[in-house]
């Protein structure tokens, strides 16, 4: 049992995720080229870059969603809490419990709000009604939508607005207490008001959860993130504090991108 603790947990250290010499291939196509990057705990890190530069690809490596893609080959190491998540003896379920994900398009399950949020906890063996209800309340509160939804827990999640659906998805991801939350363009399908709510939410969450967010929206990255990584054609061109990237980038490509001259 002791062994279980050791191998089965990802205790996030000051460096939440450490990526070293990462190369990724879809078949013969190399989508990521020698990425080295440390994501700090308790911060929001933004990935920016033109379409097709590999942002989503890198993000999906961190919870190993790329395992589902045929012909995807990954080199290098991803360490969380000092453990290589692609190493032997790593339980995918445990990894994904610790590294949650929110997708571009809101994708709540076509069941009730309540069942959406309890899906994860049930998966991890929680059956007790009171505990589940407490988790639902807690998750919705953390997603800042408890007041909105507390009377509609048994309503279908598909009846919610797009913005609500996305926040529900965040609540669903939070239900299993992840330490890291991956967000792939979580607001690109939403209106400005919903987008604002989710940005606020991220700022509140980062105390407890390390957030990595992919965004096409420069202002969004500038507003909410602490660090920003700029990608181009599979390479990490520049990675620094958001302030520096947006005010005084080192590389010319970065400057051209953030001032809107390509991509």
């Amino acid at each position, binding site marked *: 049992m002791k*062994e*279980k603790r050791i*191998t*089965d947990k990802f205790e996030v250290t000051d460096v939440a995720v450490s990526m070293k010499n990462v190369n990724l291939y879809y078949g013969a196509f190399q989508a990521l080229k020698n990425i080295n990057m440390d994501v700090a705990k308790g911060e929001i890190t933004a990935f920016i870059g033109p379409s097709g530069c590999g942002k989503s690809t890198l993000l999906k490596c961190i*919870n190993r*969603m790329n*395992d*589902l*893609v*045929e012909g995807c080959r990954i080199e290098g190491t991803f360490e969380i809490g000092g453990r290589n998540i692609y190493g032997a*003896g790593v*339980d*995918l*379920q*445990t*990894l*994904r*419990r610790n590294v*949650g*994900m929110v*997708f571009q*398009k809101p*994708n*709540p*399950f*076509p*069941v009730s709000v309540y069942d959406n949020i309890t*899906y*994860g906890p049930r*998966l*991890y063996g929680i059956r007790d009604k009171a505990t589940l209800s407490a988790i639902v309340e807690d998750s919705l509160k953390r997603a800042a939508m408890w007041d909105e939804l507390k009377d509609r827990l048994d309503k279908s999640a598909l009846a919610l607005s797009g913005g609500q659906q996305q926040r529900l*998805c965040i609540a*669903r*991801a939070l239900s*299993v207490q992840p330490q890291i939350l991956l967000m792939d363009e979580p607001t690109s399908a939403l209106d400005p008001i919903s987008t604002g709510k989710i940005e606020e939410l991220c700022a509140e969450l980062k105390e407890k959860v390390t957030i990595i967010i992919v965004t096409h929206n420069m202002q969004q990255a500038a507003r909410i993130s602490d660090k920003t990584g700029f990608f181009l054609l599979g390479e990490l061109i520049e990675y620094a504090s958001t302030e520096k990237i947006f005010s005084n980038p080192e590389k010319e490509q970065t400057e051209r991108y953030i001032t809107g001259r390509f991509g």
Partner: protein
Amino acid sequence: MKQGFNLSKIKEGVAKAVFALAACFAVLSVAAIIGYLLYAGIPAFRETGVGNFLFSTTWAPGYDGPASEKFGILPMIVGSTIATGGALLIGGTLGVAVAVFIVYFCPAKFKMPLVQTVSVLAGIPSVIYGYFGLKQIVPALAAISPNGNGTGVLAVSLVLGIMILPTVASLTKDALEAVPAAYYEGALALGLTKEQSVFKVLVPSAKSGISTALGLGIGRAVGETMAVIMVAGNTVQFPKGLFDGFMTLTGNIVMDMSYASGVHRSALVATGFVLLLFILVLNGILYAVKGKGRKERRKFRFSIKNAGDKGASKVGNALAGFYNRCADGAAEIAQKVKMTALKATDKISCATNAAVTAVLGKGTDKEGKPIYKKAGGGYIVLKVLCAVGTLIMVASVAYLIGFIVVKGTQAFIETGFVNFMFGKGGAGKNSLAPAFVSTGALIGISLAISLPIGVCAAIYLVEYAKSGSRIVKVIRLFTDTLSGIPSIVFGLFGVIVFNDALGLGYSLLSGGLTLSVMILPTVVRAVEESLLNVPLSYREASYALGAGKIHTIGKIVLPCALKGILTATVLSVGRIVSESAALLLTAGSVKNMPRGITSPGSSFAVMMYMYASEGLYMNEAYATALVLIVIVIAINAVIFAIGPKKEKKIERKKNNG
């Protein structure tokens, strides 16, 4: 930790193996059907000689001892060919006309009712078509027949024609709806009339789809049994006129099978084998015409490297080889289809060009400008003909259903509804109670087998197999093949395997087992379709929370696909209820109450055939027909109610792990 980890891995592995096995079931079934029919037909082939069997004209089972036995099926081959030709002429033409009308000319509010009419027509059991033919068409024809004989070529053509109409119409409709809108826009932009666009541009560009529709219509006509024997006259001879009786391959099998033994029996199975071969070849040709043949071959070659399953890849290649050879014949067609497809994805201008050449031929005036022919009245006439064809279909359906409803109601009044429906029966008194029980038992047995297998197979195809992989294609091909096999062939297979080899004899169990093989493709396809409609993003969300594949399938995918599974169930029930030929051979045709699943029993359709064929129980036959019609309409209503509403095009699943 290791243990838990391994346990879930083992669970996933076992589940995958189970699904894969289920998916192979269709392949195994087709192989078994071919194998067993060939095996049981060999004595006849050996006794008679293949050439003699196929091309000699005397069919004389050993009434005067084995020495005088002769088994030549040429008259039956000719009979089936004529019947099919007649049916195609009538049902094929009408079917295409109906489809063109529904897709292009029908006022919007009549569209749904017409589509529903077509699907009701498809669901009506063949015994009802046969009885309707016997009671209405044959007497009418007898009145105008020079030899006073109403049965024969024309009667069969008419009955079979109505029967294949829905097959042709619904597939043609699909093909027409798949024609890119750009064609129509392009044609209109050129100033063509709507009629010209439809008949010169749109219909011709759906040619390959329409040939497939007609091909499947042929398959249905060749394999039809019960309706044919009721109106064909059933004399083994070459018919010389429209009113001459004749025998088809299927008719010969079902009429002799109940008493034949020895070489005679083997000869009947061999007849079934010939029929099966014809269907297989037909399927091969259709497969090639669809233009898939060439594309598939290329994929087969290129993907050999990535072969996941070595063993399966060999089978796959052998099969690909077979179909490629078929495809070579149709290479030119395939090429054309490809060109059309290319154009379809291209800009409107291509369509416009097609339209120009289609309408104008090569005609240009002196300055090299194209000459626009005057909008001829010809196309208007075609449009009117389509409308007339649709009217004929509607009238036929109304007439048939009205006839059964009126006669059935009268019959119920005369026999006493409650008495006939639920009475004790026995000793000269007829009752449908045994049919209720038998039909229920048959439905229960076949669903209990084919639903789990079909669902598992569909799960394998959608959730596990790489989409577009060789395995998926092979399984899908075999599933399609299985669904094209005539029910009489399933009947023979059931007799050989379940009745004889397993010693079940005439029994509900044997009938149910046979039906379960028969409805498997229906289940697989309906469930597959609904699984594909479950958005990929649901699966992603589940995986991202840490769920494994089995958990995701069980908790998310299957619940979302419940409608599809329900549809599959209802479709299967429809198929079972209207089946008669296969059941006649396997479950027998007794009128009494079955004592268990090992005793024989008659479903409604078989019961109706018995009443109808004995000639003594007209009322009972009509009343049973009414019950069947009500069931068919109810099933259509249910499917319509639960069917996928077309409003949202849900993202398709493209990839999986």
